[in-house]
């Protein structure tokens, strides 16, 4: 047996060393080539939800040709810029400085101010385009809001109204309980401002894109800036501005009744009878009314089979369950005022109807004839009181509290240990 001393083993051969070195350099180059590729800014995705791209007229020309779609993209870009470089016309009254703070990749500028807040906090659910179809969206129920149609569920405004800045701030600060929307209360004030501005921006952009669609596809217009401003931007911005004016906000005409018990009883009557709330929310309020519901973002997918939905929409069909009113979880807020507004103006984009009158019409007064569809302010308060009483109402058909024992002593952590 020949034994080799350790000093021999540490000696290497030059030739082998060179071969090893070249292998290592190759490996390093391979890795470097992967990591040094340039950043490619993501585009806003064209809103093709629900469209059948193969649709063609009798002569066989495609209705949605690449060329036309490119025109739409160009026109929308001319109005709003890109995710990394937002741009707005003065008419939008959006603050470009705030938008810049929210847009683009996550970073910070030379003064240490954050950039890319939207992509840091929002985009993984709501998508870079604001289409509510970010990578996380598929796993959430309900889906994150698609901002592009410009419809927001929880607003303080009348039916058809846009959210006020205050509404958006409230949603962001409090989150939406019972959904995946978390609270962003810890963000600094100016970051919240930037994000609110950016959500409005994405929404206006999405709505504008929808208005450009028929102009390009149906009217085949040559789009110039004047047409875009007049026929697209003005109506979109006009609605945002007008429907968020202070007077468009739903304000109860009467205070909440002080006789709570009587109000609850009256509310129960309305809930179970005349108003038909029980039809969806169930007679016990458990949200188990038999109807299947879909919100406006989903009901267009209803009559398509699964493959069609997959081909035309970013997300599969999702059912909307009427709220279980005994949970004590209120997505749009738990203040009586919030619930009043939900009942008065409905939950926008969902089958939850408005019980109050549309903007500009007088509310029903007790003097009005029976059979009028609208509820009076007092009646809405009755419903509010009834709904708020449900989580604590004893009901023979419902098992008592799902919550763990209330006394901390009773549940002190002994049982689980063994």
């Amino acid at each position: 047996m020949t034994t080799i001393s350790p000093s021999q083993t540490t000696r290497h051969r030059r030739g082998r060393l060179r071969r090893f070195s070249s292998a290592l350099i190759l490996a390093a180059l391979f890795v470097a080539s992967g990591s040094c590729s340039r950043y490619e800014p993501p585009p806003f995705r064209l809103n093709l939800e629900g469209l059948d791209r193969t649709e063609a007229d009798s002569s066989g020309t495609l209705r949605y040709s690449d060329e036309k779609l490119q025109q739409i993209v160009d026109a929308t870009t001319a109005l709003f810029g890109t995710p990394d470089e937002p741009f707005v016309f003065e008419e939008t009254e959006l603050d470009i400085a705030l938008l810049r703070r929210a847009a683009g990749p996550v970073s910070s500028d030379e003064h240490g101010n954050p950039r890319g807040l939207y992509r840091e906090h929002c985009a993984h659910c709501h998508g870079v385009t604001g289409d509510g179809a970010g990578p996380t969206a598929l796993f959430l129920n309900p889906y994150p809001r698609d901002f592009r149609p410009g419809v927001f569920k929880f607003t303080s405004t009348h039916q058809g109204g846009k959210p006020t800045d205050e509404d958006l701030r409230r949603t962001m600060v409090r989150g939406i309980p019972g959904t995946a929307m978390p609270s962003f209360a810890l963000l600094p004030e100016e970051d919240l401002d930037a994000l609110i501005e950016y959500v409005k921006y994405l929404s206006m952009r999405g709505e504008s894109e929808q208005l450009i669609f028929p102009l390009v596809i149906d009217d085949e217009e040559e789009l110039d800036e004047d047409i875009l401003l007049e026929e697209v931007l003005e109506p979109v911005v006009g609605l945002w501005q007008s429907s968020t004016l202070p007077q468009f906000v739903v304000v109860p005409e009467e205070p909440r009744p002080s006789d709570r018990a009587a109000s609850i009883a009256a509310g129960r009557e309305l809930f179970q009878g005349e108003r038909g709330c029980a039809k969806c929310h169930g007679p016990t309020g458990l949200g188990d009314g038999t109807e299947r519901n879909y919100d406006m973002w989903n009901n267009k997918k209803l009559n398509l089979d699964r493959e069609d939905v997959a081909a035309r929409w970013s997300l599969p069909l999702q059912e909307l369950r009427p709220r279980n009113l005994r949970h004590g979880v209120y997505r749009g807020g738990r203040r009586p005022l919030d619930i009043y507004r939900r009942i008065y103006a409905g939950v926008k984009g969902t089958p939850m109807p408005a019980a109050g009158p549309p903007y500009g019409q007088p509310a029903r007064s007790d003097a009005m004839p029976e059979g009028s569809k609208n509820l009076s302010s007092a009646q809405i308060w009755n419903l509010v009181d009834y709904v708020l009483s449900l989580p604590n109402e004893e009901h023979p058909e419902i098992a008592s509290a799902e919550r763990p024992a209330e006394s901390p002593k009773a549940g002190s952590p002994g049982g689980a240990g063994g």
Partner: protein
Amino acid sequence: MTVAASPSPGAPLVDANSHHRGFLRRYIFSTDHKVIGLQFYFSTLIWFFVGGALALAVRWQLAWPWSEMPIVGRMLFAAEGGQISPEFYTMLVTMHATIMIFFVIIPILAGAFGNFLIPLMIGAEDMAFPTLNMFSYWFMWPAFACMTASFFVAGGAASAGWTSYPPLSVLHDAAPGSGPGQTLWLLGVVFIGIASMLGSLNYLTTIIQMRAPGMTMLRLPMTIWGLFITAILQAFALPVLTAASVMQLTDRLLGTGFYLSEAGGQPLLWQHLFWFYSHPAVYIMILPAMGMVSDIISCYARKPLFGYRPMVAAIIAIAGLGFIVWGHHMFMSGMNPAMGTTFMAATILIALPSAVKVFNWLGTLWGGRIEFTSAMLNALAFVSMFIIGGLSGIFMAATTVDIVIHDTYFIVGHLHYVLFGGSTFAVFAGTYHWFPKMFGRQMNEFWGKVHFLLTFLFFNGTFFTMHIIGMGGYPRRVAAATAYAEFARFEPLNVFMTICALGMGFTQLIFAANLFGSLIWGRRADRNPWRANTLEWTAPSPPPHGNFDFQPVAYRGPYEYSSPEVTADFYPQNQPPDAEPATAAAH
């Protein structure tokens, strides 16, 4: 097994012609323990690189949260400008840990080194149940397949942490990875459990029944002791995890409620069952490494292992205590705090045998004649890093202190000091040490040392810093701690750690190049290049099917280096007492 029952010493053992087989039976569905060991080795090596890549992605996100991630971001998140999503981050964390623990450390120690070394070191021609042994490897493949597939199913791979705590892992709506990915994860764990149980039964039987004549239990090398005790741990603890995983599967798929409080179950039950296996698993991941390091240090210090019997006793004590300390993972879980005290006492006691081991390694070095080979350096790194990992464990074991560092980066640092600083350095050491025996060639020493030095520096840069941010309370498994004012101050340290981690990751390419390069270009090795005592070095390199050309007989313990009885500085176990040194067995 008695000496009398065995073939007489010196008789030819293997008829070389009796093992001619086709390629498939020889290299793929082989029942030869060495081939199976190498199959384990290369499979785990591939997973080591997958798991390492996941770790680098995790580090990237922590240093530069939500920035464009190289390669991954480009491929998967182009629409988001290359920034990953938070559920992708939780998946990265989960799968990094799962892969590194279940597919790398456990199988490379028990599967690769265990299979390769046990028969060779005890002087047997193969395992007791070669076919069972083959199955133990091939049962890994369904597990590999499950985990690989889980990356491609809807929702991605499991993302409930490698601990898979219910209800997060049971409720389908709770997390994206709680979809099919989680089911596949559990199936994978069940398959790994089966594979390891088959392996451990085999190891136990082999070590108890197949030792060469004269190889008493107290002449076994420490590697074998480590693997023996590991096999006992696996045989007793794994069925619990497998059963618990099956229960979680039925919770997910059949609507049972073992772990769901609303169905009358208890989420903490999983934690108890999981840690009843997974704490012993920590020792499964370190005991064989301790054994290998003991052998390697003694060999390159040219000195007997200091305190062989205390070392054996320490391994047994660690394993025994390992069964009654699982609760120390649950001090903050809502388990009765009074039970925490009991678990704390048992846990802190483990420091005692660990201290004995460290002391004995140092005692072995003291007065030795140290040869600084790559294998030795990695083994020394094991000792040095295990000291840190062991000492930082005391902080967590103390229940009161655990309140502040539980689920922070302190524990991430601690566990990496044990699993990377400990086990992985031991794997490197074992690779450099036994490579000649595995392939008949030697690894390049120069690149081995470069690899060691860089890994050692980058490793400490990455993980030592974690203790600091852990003391600062920085929580683990958080995709970006930017939401917390308290932790923003640690951002520079996060960047530092990531740069070190990237360096460490790329350094492993040196190891890969060295490993595969040496397979082809490495210098040929003879039977005993390190002048070691244990029996595997008396077989040819690489050993043929059947291992030994003569039945080895053990005349003494494995650590008779620099014995005054012989002139050479080693005294192989199989060398008859009167023969002149170290030539009898070779060639």
